[in-house]
């Protein structure tokens, strides 16, 4: 039983980590909490659904396509709207991204209706030594782990990644060192949207797709960031796995209704006890 819980927790934890890394990057680089992060994930899911239902493309192949599409959407949002509030008080950026998120959800409702959509691709589980590995979740885990690992490699070793990290440490100093900060903001927003889209594309084979599916992901991504420590990118990994495990353990003892509350209680507890995150984030 415990082994099963740990496996399920890790499987969903990788997805949390990947999606939350996107939210964390935007926050780190721009000091903007993107309320529209979950709705961007929802658009990723619909991209996969659309490509699968209308063109019969294998859902796994749609992951990079969804990422590319949402990268463009993210860049456009940043260039069109979000860049105006990067230096504004927090109130403005929160309200702006909240407005964007409402618009995205309702546009999706107009375009795709509220009907539940499903991508039926792989179902069932692999049984290994008495433990069940859900096939779609296992595949999602492998993809999410790969994308997250790749993201960390990019952040760690490439010039772009270094510029992103430099900008999130100090925008002024990065600027003085010749980093085109405006461009970094734009690329980061696009990259973060692509991470959300990857999450959405992978979720498409696991859960039902509907316009309001994203809301809870904004919240959970934020929780992962808080758990890992804001501004601490590897913290997203720890936070994601932790959230996955806690949710799974809670589902052992609680009814479905109450296990939705667990993430919330966790957020309040962390804010009470260790507001700088479990690993200790950079204080801002």
């Amino acid at each position: 039983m415990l082994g099963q819980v740990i496996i399920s927790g890790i499987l969903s934890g990788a997805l949390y980590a990947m999606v939350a890394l996107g939210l964390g990057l935007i926050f780190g680089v721009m000091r903007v909490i993107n309320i529209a992060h979950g709705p961007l994930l929802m658009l990723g899911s619909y991209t996969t659904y659309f490509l699968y239902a209308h063109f019969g493309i294998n859902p796994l192949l749609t992951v990079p396509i969804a990422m590319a599409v949402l990268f463009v959407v993210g860049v456009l949002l940043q260039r069109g709207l979000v860049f105006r509030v990067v230096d504004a008080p927090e109130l403005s950026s929160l309200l702006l991204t909240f407005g964007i998120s409402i618009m995205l959800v309702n546009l999706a409702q107009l375009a795709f209706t509220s009907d539940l959509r499903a991508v039926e691709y792989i179902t069932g589980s692999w049984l290994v030594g008495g433990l069940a590995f859900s096939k779609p979740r296992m595949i999602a885990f492998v993809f999410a782990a790969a994308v997250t690992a790749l993201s960390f490699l990019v952040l760690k070793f490439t010039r772009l990644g270094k510029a992103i990290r430099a900008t999130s440490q100090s925008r002024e100093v990065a600027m003085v060192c010749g980093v085109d900060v405006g461009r970094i903001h734009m690329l980061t927003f696009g990259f973060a949207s692509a991470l959300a889209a990857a999450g959405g594309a992978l979720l498409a084979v696991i859960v039902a797709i509907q316009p309001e599916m994203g809301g809870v992901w904004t919240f959970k991504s934020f929780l992962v960031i808080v758990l890992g420590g804001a501004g601490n990118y590897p913290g997203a990994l720890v936070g994601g796995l932790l959230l996955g495990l806690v949710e799974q353990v809670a589902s052992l003892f609680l009814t479905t209704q109450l296990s939705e509350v667990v993430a919330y209680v966790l957020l309040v507890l962390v804010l009470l006890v260790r507001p700088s995150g479990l690993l200790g984030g950079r204080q801002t």
Partner: protein
Amino acid sequence: MAAAILSVLAALAAYPVVGTGYGVRSVQQIFMWIALAGSWNLISGLTGYVSFGHVAFFGAGAYAGAILVASAGWPWPLAALAGGAAAVVLAVVIGYPCLRLKGPYFAIAMLGLNEVLRALVSYFEGLTGGGNGLSLPTLDASVPIYYVMGVLAVVVTAMSWLIVTSRFGLRLMTIREDEVAAEAMGIDTFHHKLAALLLSAVGPGVAGALMARDQGYIEPISVFPLAITVTMIVMALFGGKGTVFGPVLGAAALFVAQEIVWARYPYVHPLLFGAIIVGVVLLMPRGVLGLLQQRYRLPRTI
């Protein structure tokens, strides 16, 4: 100014005598939105801490009031006050951990609060009726509720005016402009933010309980919809956040617009609200009243 306000209030007080049932119900709705938008403005407009879940206080008040009326047999005016008290208790529980920190923590915590309450209400079926909802004994009190809702709108607006013109209000606005500076000047920012949140929870709590009594039936989806939060934010922003009469203006203008125009296009309506939020934040962050204040050099305290 005072004469104008008094004559408007007198006209509204006389309205139920001549108005139709639909008209009375509509004006009562405007009162409710004034109370909700004005309350949101107290925490978010004055301190800059955005509440994305103010409907949680509304719903908590609605359930507290409805349970007291339906199960304990309380008279509804008393239950409405209890609804306000329940919302304040909720505000303490949520404000204490989340307002100690600067930054977006409060905003996100409020974003999730709504879902949590909905889950809890569905779980404690014995008390709340769960997903089946809760029916109140039938009672036609729409005219008395009209007056009480009107008083609530006046009280919330008067409270905003008292706060904006007081040292307490100045401290709240200092927190909004620069929290570190506010702390350096010796303002106990945490307790000021918490006090603002508590004050801003009362109105929605009372309004929720009144709405429950008026409708006679509540269920989780009817009292915890995100749409209520969105509407009060849009109204306060459009009218002018951080002003006293901005939420009043926004609530009245957008409610009328909603009834006349947007009711015909129900699907476009929430999309428009999102667009208004984006537009106001980018193009006129001080709202309509803020623009008027700037252009005609009106006093800051309206």
